[in-house]
């Protein structure tokens, strides 16, 4: 059922340092994310992920806790600096598991997309996710009834 969080996990048969490199080094990021990645790897560092087809999307590094957590905010609007209203937060966490690495990604911040949303939403953020879940569940039940 939906939550306003997107999360996925993958098991990787590689040492954590290799996974850390894959998700933080621009040259490696461009192999799995966009076509280009250029940014300053420090908290507050800025840059952009580029897609030949879509253009450049600015990012800001939010967290570096090597080799456990890495987070950046990325604007989902072309050529704009990330703000809460135009971006989401992508956070990776890494853990040793079964001789390899468990990598989890969490993408959040869907509620704040737009100034108007933010005002009402911030007051209601607690419980919002659960509420949406419950609402979807019961509306689907109504639908099939």
């Amino acid at each position, binding site marked *: *059922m*939906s*939550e*306003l969080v*997107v*999360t*996925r*996990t*993958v098991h*990787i*048969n*590689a040492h954590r340092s*290799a*996974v850390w*490199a*894959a*998700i933080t080094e621009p040259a*490696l990021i461009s*192999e*799995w*994310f966009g076509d280009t990645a250029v940014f300053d790897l420090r908290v507050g560092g800025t840059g952009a992920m580029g897609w030949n087809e879509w253009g450049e999307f600015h990012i800001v590094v939010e967290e570096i806790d090597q080799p456990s957590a890495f987070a950046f905010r990325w604007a*989902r609007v072309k050529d704009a600096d990330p703000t809460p209203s135009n971006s989401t937060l992508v956070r990776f966490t890494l853990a040793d598991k079964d001789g390899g*690495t468990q*990598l989890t*990604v969490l*993408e959040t911040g*869907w*509620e704040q*997309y*737009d100034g*108007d*949303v933010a*005002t*009402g*939403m911030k007051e*209601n953020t607690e419980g919002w996710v659960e*509420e*949406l879940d419950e*609402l*979807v569940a*019961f*509306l*689907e039940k*109504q*639908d099939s009834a």
Partner: protein
Amino acid sequence: MIEDLVAVFAALSEQTRWDILTRLGSRELSASALAAELPVSRQAIAKHLIALAEVGLVEAVPTGREIRYRALGARLSRVAMELDRIGSEWDARLSRIKLVAERS
């Protein structure tokens, strides 16, 4: 896609609208009937109903002399599907990260 989500989230950003949707989920009601159940004026209810209808969360059902409203689940399911789709993009990216990391 994003504009789509924004519109739905914006429409749901007020507690009153949740309250309205919750009540409409159990049965069709007119704006007057909703105003009788909620601590909000009929005019305010009418505005909320318009906002909810604009993003497809409720629809008007003319019933005799009054207009009743019913909740629509399909639209919220759509939000769930969009988030699933974004999750699928991450599945694909994580698979590629796995390739990059395991190669080294």
